[in-house]
């Protein structure tokens, strides 16, 4: 009786093939792990990042003609920020007007007006601004920073301002 011959084998190739398969499998698993955990990590980071961009809205300020050249008026944004809106020209365009915020451009503290010295002063790091909001002393003066200006628009003789709608008081 003829015995069955074992199937042709290449014993010399077996270990490299096995180790190749093992290494490929290991690498694929490592890649899958890195991808899945990396994706979860990225989702986690995105979760911590604010969901929406900061909202800004246009708000009515005043009837433009009521504000004469050289006059100014206080305005309070929805987030509570104090803004000074002043008229500095007579051309009848939006360029006549300027809106200055009270948030110091240095590190975000609130400036206040010092009438005796005719200047805005920031108590956090001694920032000083002239009445037009230009930094003239302290770190903002050194860095050439000014008080923030808010966009204005004139529509049908009415003055509007664009302000942030995000903050602790909103």
């Amino acid at each position, binding site marked *: 009786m003829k015995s069955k011959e074992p199937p042709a084998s290449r014993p010399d190739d077996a270990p490299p093939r096995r180790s190749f398969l093992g290494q490929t499998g290991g690498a694929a698993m490592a890649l899958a792990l890195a991808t899945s955990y990396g994706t979860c990590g990225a989702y986690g980071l995105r979760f911590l990042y604010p969901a929406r961009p900061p909202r800004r809205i246009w708000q009515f300020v005043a009837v433009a003609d009521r504000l004469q050249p050289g006059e100014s008026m206080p305005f309070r944004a929805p987030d509570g920020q104090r803004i000074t809106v002043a008229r500095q020209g007579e051309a009848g365009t939006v360029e006549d007007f300027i809106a200055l915020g009270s948030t110091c451009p240095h590190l975000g*503290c609130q400036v206040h007006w010092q009438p005796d010295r005719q200047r805005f002063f920031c*108590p956090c790091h001694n920032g000083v601004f002239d009445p037009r909001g230009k930094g003239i002393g302290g770190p903002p003066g050194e860095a050439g920073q000014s008080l923030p200006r808010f966009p204005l628009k004139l529509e049908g003789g009415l003055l509007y301002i664009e302000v*942030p709608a995000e903050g602790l008081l909103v």
Partner: protein
Amino acid sequence: MSAVSRWLAERIPVQPGQLRELTNEPVPNHLRRWWFCLGGTPAYLFVVQIVTGILLAFYYEASPEHAYESVRYITEEAAYGWFLRGIHKWAATLMIASMILHQMRVFFTGAYRKPRELNWMVGMCLLVTVLLTGFTGYSLVFEQLSYWGATVGANITDTVPFVGAHMKRLLLAGDAYNEHTLSRFFLLHAAVLPVTIGLLLFLHITLIRLQGVTEFHFEDEGPSEPKFFNFFPDHFLTELAIGLVLMVLLSVLATALPVTMGPKADPLTTPEIIKPEWFFYVAFRWLKLFSATVAVLSMGFILFVMFLWPFIDAWIRRRWPGSEFSVWVGTAGALTIIGLTVWEAAVAH
């Protein structure tokens, strides 16, 4: 062996000899002097912070509507709340002070040199993490200092090139302080940063155990005197004594100089006189002297140099053997820090 001991030995297979070896690291003789034990002091105070912090968290509410009221309740109504909050605040102060002293001791004795460079770097990470924990801690009270401190802190990160704006948004959960900000600070203060400190501390102590403590010999030590003593019980007793002194000191401070409540946070008004906690006086004064970008980048650079100092120092000593440059740098640095801190403390603006 009793039945209980046998039962335990089967379930916890550690031989008494192994335990003795693990706990009985030979301690160099110079550690009999207490000022060489300043490294253990912040570690002890960290445990105090964890315990008092967990207790305070039972009443604290991390929302802008309730945070201030909950801290007022802890301070004025809850039984011993004033004492526990006082201990927490003073332990933070002593922890930072002892870390600075420990770092100065390590610096001026050159204990950061080869092969201990990595442990100096771990120590620097610990210092920065503890300072961040202090910063997020006083932000939680939601008094004026808390709000404006958080605002200034977030805007400082904003000045970092490229990533600053994203870091600020991540920290504040928005472009400005909003209703999600405080819970973020609370999570950082009560979970993320303490766990980081714990891991760094573990690494710090592991490296000390692996490398052993640097040895110093003093003139009054005779050649026949033993150079080491046992960790257990000798050094352990020293640490216990330090722990006892610290507890007495903390109790006295919490009672004699109790914590108070400042005015509640007002996002519309920055107070005329505002200052951070004392450990940030130096940074606060620095920010007044230069523009924000220059101040932040220079502070970052100084921290970076401090972080890599063991390698910079090694390079200097290779170039100029026998140089005492590190002592001069350390003295100048310490005097500058003290000078700026005293200056900020002495003036209103």
